[in-house]
């Protein structure tokens, strides 16, 4: 309980309509919050009558509000952590591919810079 986890379910009381459960589900999974709310209402009407409400109240009672420390700064970060929660392995592979891409681009730059120096050296060599 020391450090807040980013892969835990939290209520999202900042974007709440009633208790923030639907907003929390939307924040956790990355689905649109309206879609989650409509799905909840449809599910309730379509026969889940007492149980969706029980689940809702239980969740709002048991889950904590999202701690301020791990509030995502940018939408990009929000999407990143939604990806981590959906599939940690794929996210790790994504990060690795980003580093590979950086490596490739840096190699291009290095090649250009070093070959530039070589051509400069050749020019000086010719002038002698």
């Amino acid at each position: 309980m020391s450090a807040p986890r980013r892969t835990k379910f939290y209520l999202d009381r900042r974007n709440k309509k009633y208790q923030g459960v639907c907003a929390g589900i939307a924040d956790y999974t990355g689905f649109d919050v309206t879609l989650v709310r409509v799905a909840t209402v449809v599910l309730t009407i379509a026969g889940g009558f007492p149980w969706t409400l029980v689940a809702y109240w239980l969740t709002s009672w048991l889950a904590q509000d999202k701690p301020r420390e791990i509030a995502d700064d940018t939408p990009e970060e929000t999407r990143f952590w939604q990806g981590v929660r959906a599939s940690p392995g794929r996210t790790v592979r994504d990060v690795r591919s980003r580093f590979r891409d950086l490596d490739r681009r840096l190699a291009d730059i290095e090649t250009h810079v070093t070959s530039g120096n070589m051509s400069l050296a050749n020019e000086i060599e010719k002038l002698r």
Partner: protein
Amino acid sequence: MEFDDITGLVAVLAIFLGLPWVVFHYITKWKTAATLTTQDEDLLDDLHDLARRLDDRVVTIERIMDAENPAWRATSLSDAPETHRLTREPRIQETRR
């Protein structure tokens, strides 16, 4: 009468053995699934942040090089391994001499 007994038996077995079995099967599966520890999460957060910052820097350098010489990508991308070899080999020869 016979059939009713069998149906009842099957129902009782399904509810009191089958259902918990399925539930616990998925619970154990869910527990053993690859999950991140807090350290993993911090590490991933760091790496993601680092990748983003490195990306920014490389983009800055690429922009500077584009301003200096817009055709620099052509020289390095056209035959990258070959130019690499060409730039590396003279140096090695020089050190050998």
